[in-house]
């Protein structure tokens, strides 16, 4: 299973390096949304709740792009058939897709979070960084699990472009609550974590539940 998942992941990353369809689009989109927020809120710098909200909502919206593209090559080029013909555990596909999405999100955040710090954040980003990194990683795990499941659910529907955001965004509300509430005190002047443990526990619980659910039900999406 791990061997097959690694093969699929490697293939996906090669295609992404060549076509650059996901990560650059997600990054560009995030920066554009920052600009929109600058004008929409008419603020040059943000801190606290507003900063945390803008950062997380932007990242979640960018995730939608990654999720809609996640199965695009498979759908267009019969990759799922090829995989089903091979003596490979179907769960490998989920593991590979979730891992790919996780990497895309990490790459996105490597650019989008510092850019947020430069463009909009009032307080110093570095002060928030250690705790913020933990929050980002936990949120990315959950997003990767739910995103891969949603992508697989939407891939066979006619209204794909519609179903992905409509399905993904409500599903990640608990993640947004956890991540935004945990980040908010960190993005204030003098960054003091507050209730951090409780919200990290929420994120970790969410990650665990949705990873288990996705692993349990994913196979059924491929079973014709």
């Amino acid at each position: 299973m791990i061997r097959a998942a690694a093969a699929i992941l490697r293939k996906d990353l090669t295609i992404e390096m060549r076509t650059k369809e996901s990560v650059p689009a997600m990054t560009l989109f995030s920066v554009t949304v920052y600009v929109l927020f600058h004008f929409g809120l008419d603020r040059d710098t943000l801190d606290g709740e507003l900063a945390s909200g803008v950062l997380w909502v932007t990242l979640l919206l960018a995730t939608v792009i990654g999720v809609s593209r996640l199965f695009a090559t498979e759908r267009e080029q019969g990759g799922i058939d090829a995989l089903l013909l091979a003596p490979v555990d179907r769960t490998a596909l989920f593991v590979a897709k979730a891992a790919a999405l996780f990497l895309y999100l990490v790459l996105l955040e490597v650019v989008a979070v510092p850019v947020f710090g430069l463009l909009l954040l009032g307080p110093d980003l570095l002060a928030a960084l250690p705790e913020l990194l933990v929050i980002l990683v936990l949120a990315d795990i959950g997003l990767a699990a739910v995103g891969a499941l949603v992508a697989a659910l939407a891939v066979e529907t006619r209204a794909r472009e519609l179903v992905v955001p409509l399905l993904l965004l409500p599903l990640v509300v608990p993640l947004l609550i956890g991540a935004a509430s945990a980040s908010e005190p960190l993005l204030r002047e003098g960054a003091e974590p507050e209730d951090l443990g409780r919200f990290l526990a929420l994120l970790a619980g969410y990650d665990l539940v949705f990873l288990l659910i996705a692993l349990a039900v994913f196979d059924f999406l491929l079973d014709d």
Partner: protein
Amino acid sequence: MYSKGFKPLAVATVLSILAAFALVFFYAPNDADQGFIQKIFYVHVPMAIVALFGFVAGGIMAIKHLRTGEASWDMRSYVAIHLSIILGTAVLVTGAIWAKASWGHWWVWDEPVLVSFLIVFLLYCVYYPLRYSIEDPERQARYSSVFAIAAGAFVPINFTAVRLAESVTHPRVLSQTGGSLPGDMRLTFLISLLAMTLLFVTLWKLELTSKHASMQLKRLRRRLELRAEERGAATPARSPV
């Protein structure tokens, strides 16, 4: 198939609804602060509870469907979710009326139950576009079940998350779902909840029976057409059964 025990169930439903109405209007006292409008509570909260249980039950039936592969479990899950969405609409409307009457706003964000309910409702609304944009019936059933399971698990997680967020900024004074109600209000609430539950189960069975019947009808029609076709084509008579 689904009509077993329907009659006593229907009678019990009507009786409990009548009892609930009687209790709400003639027995339960008017609320000291909110007055008569507080009685919307006896509709709003039972509907919300039943709708949420309907969503979760839909998820459990979906698990059954994926386990057994029987299409009837998908139908059960679909009808449960469908009814819960209808109830959900009513929950949001009654919630807004109640909020307007007692707090002066149509919507209040610091009411975690209502806010959680809105998120759950938004998620479940996607069930229809997802389900009906898949043409192959088997795949439609499987994909719907996968959705129903993920969404069913989402319900409690979401409530926990929203409550967690609220409790930081707004300490909750009193639980509204009947934890500390005076005795007469409590009895009325419980009977209302019972009536709503029975109503849900009755409607669920009714809808299933009708779906089942119309599917049977379609199948029979098809068989008839096939037979006519075969006769018309003058191929050797063969039973399509």
